[in-house]
């Protein structure tokens, strides 16, 4: 990512707080899959520009929540509203970053061609595409690799490419499904910081799913924890914690902050799966 972007993220005036008027609202959302209740009684509001991380034991419906918000699946009961309108299918300005970047990219298209797909889908005229692709690739640090094919990139670069394709949609909402889960620690940290700078710059609302509690606390303005097997009595929402850590986040200072450690302890105790 460019130096200019990093500086922009250092400016404290761009710090985003949850807006009074939520962008997305879930009212009593429940979803059954195969006769089993995956999500139950979920009430949730996502503010404009808010970065919300979702954690929870495996099988608690994290990915299902993301699919609900994207409109790929409809709730069994309850409502999902975006700007007071029902979410009833995928929308051009809602982008999903999948964990398996290798499968989500088109292997027969170059880096630039993969970004172009989102523009073609949005019917951007051919003449305008390259002018939009170049800055997007520069933002994710792939400007020098535009002519390469995905198979010629490292995992971290492939995930950057997928993020660039999602940014090409000019998303109001970015849904991310464990996007850095398959990357090594160093690559993950640099992608975390670049992602924070990018979404702050664009004012994007993010729902970020992860199984890594530290990642959730580090990135999130809020962390919500989901409960596995909620049944039909309890709500899926187990915890909803506002993260009061200062912005911009810093890989060393933030992770050593007493509040960070307290939150980590709290969530860890909560999330720990029962030992057999």
């Amino acid at each position: 990512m460019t130096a200019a972007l990093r500086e922009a993220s250092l400016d404290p005036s761009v710090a985003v707080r949850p807006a009074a008027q939520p962008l997305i609202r879930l009212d009593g959302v429940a979803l059954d899959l195969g006769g089993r209740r995956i999500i139950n009684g979920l009430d949730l509001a996502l503010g404009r520009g808010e970065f919300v991380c979702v954690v929870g034991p495996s099988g608690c419906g994290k990915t299902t929540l993301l699919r609900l918000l994207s409109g790929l699946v409809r709730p069994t009961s309850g409502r999902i509203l975006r700007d007071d309108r029902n979410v009833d299918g995928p929308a051009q300005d809602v982008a999903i970053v999948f964990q398996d970047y290798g499968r989500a990219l088109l292997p027969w298209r170059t880096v630039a061609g993969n970004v172009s797909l989102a523009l073609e889908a949005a019917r951007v005229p051919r003449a305008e595409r390259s002018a939009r692709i170049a800055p997007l690739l520069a933002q994710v640090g792939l400007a020098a690799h535009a002519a390469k094919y995905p198979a010629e990139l490292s995992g971290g670069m492939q995930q950057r490419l997928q993020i660039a394709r999602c940014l090409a949609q000019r998303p109001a909402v970015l849904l991310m499904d464990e996007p850095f889960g398959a990357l090594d620690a160093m690559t993950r940290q640099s992608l975390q910081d670049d992602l924070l700078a990018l979404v702050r710059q664009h004012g994007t609302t993010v729902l970020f799913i992860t199984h890594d509690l530290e990642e959730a606390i580090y990135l999130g303005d809020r962390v919500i924890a989901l409960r596995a097997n909620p049944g039909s009595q309890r709500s899926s929402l187990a915890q909803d914690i506002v993260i009061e850590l200062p912005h911009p986040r810093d890989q060393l200072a933030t992770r050593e902050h007493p509040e960070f450690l307290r939150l980590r302890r709290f969530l860890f105790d909560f999330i720990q799966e029962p030992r057999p």
Partner: protein
Amino acid sequence: MSRGYLSRLRGLALPVAALLAAELAMLATGAQSDAFARPSEILRAMWAAALDGSLAAASAQTLGNALLGLAMGGGIGLACGLWFGAVPRVGRLSALTVNLLRPLPSVALVPIAMLAFGFGYRMESAVVAFTCIWPMLMFAQDGVARIEPRLLEVAQVLGLRGLRRAWKIVLPAALPRIFVGLRLSLGIALTIAVTTEIVANPMGLGYGLSMAQQSLNPALMLALVIWIGVLGWAVNAGLLRLQERLFGRRGARP
């Protein structure tokens, strides 16, 4: 580069040695046969056929028939395969019909094709076409059916539907499999074309081969056999290179 050529030339060592050994053995024993000829005689016969233009003419006829049949049968197979793959319900409904027709030996259709079309390129290319339907159909159907589900989800999220989805996602994803089907079909097309010519149709390399056999000219007969082999190898090698150029970088790792 030069190493590549060298290692390829090394592959020629065994056949050349075998031919030399055969030449020497047949010279030494003075063997005479209606079925065999010395490599030098075969080479001379091939050279003569090349000079008088008969080899080129027969090759053009055989290749033309094979390609015409491939275009027709491959086209039908491709269209059906894409359809069956894209609509699994149709694929299931058609499975029994396909599996009944596919094992039918295409040479068994020669008498019918002869009645319908008489001798000539139409009859031969029809038999070739019938044969080429099946590999193209199966590989196209398989290519479409085995598309990465995640890519379909990406298309859905981006709002790509119908023809745009088929053109930008499904077809390019299935293309490598379709190309394998094409390569197999071309080999089969050549085989069936020659077979039809030997069995019935008086044109092309197969007819030349059976004429050489009936006039007890083993040198020309074997020359044609070798030439057909070379032709098949060259066509396949050309398509392999094309395949490498088209899809090589897709799976490449630095």
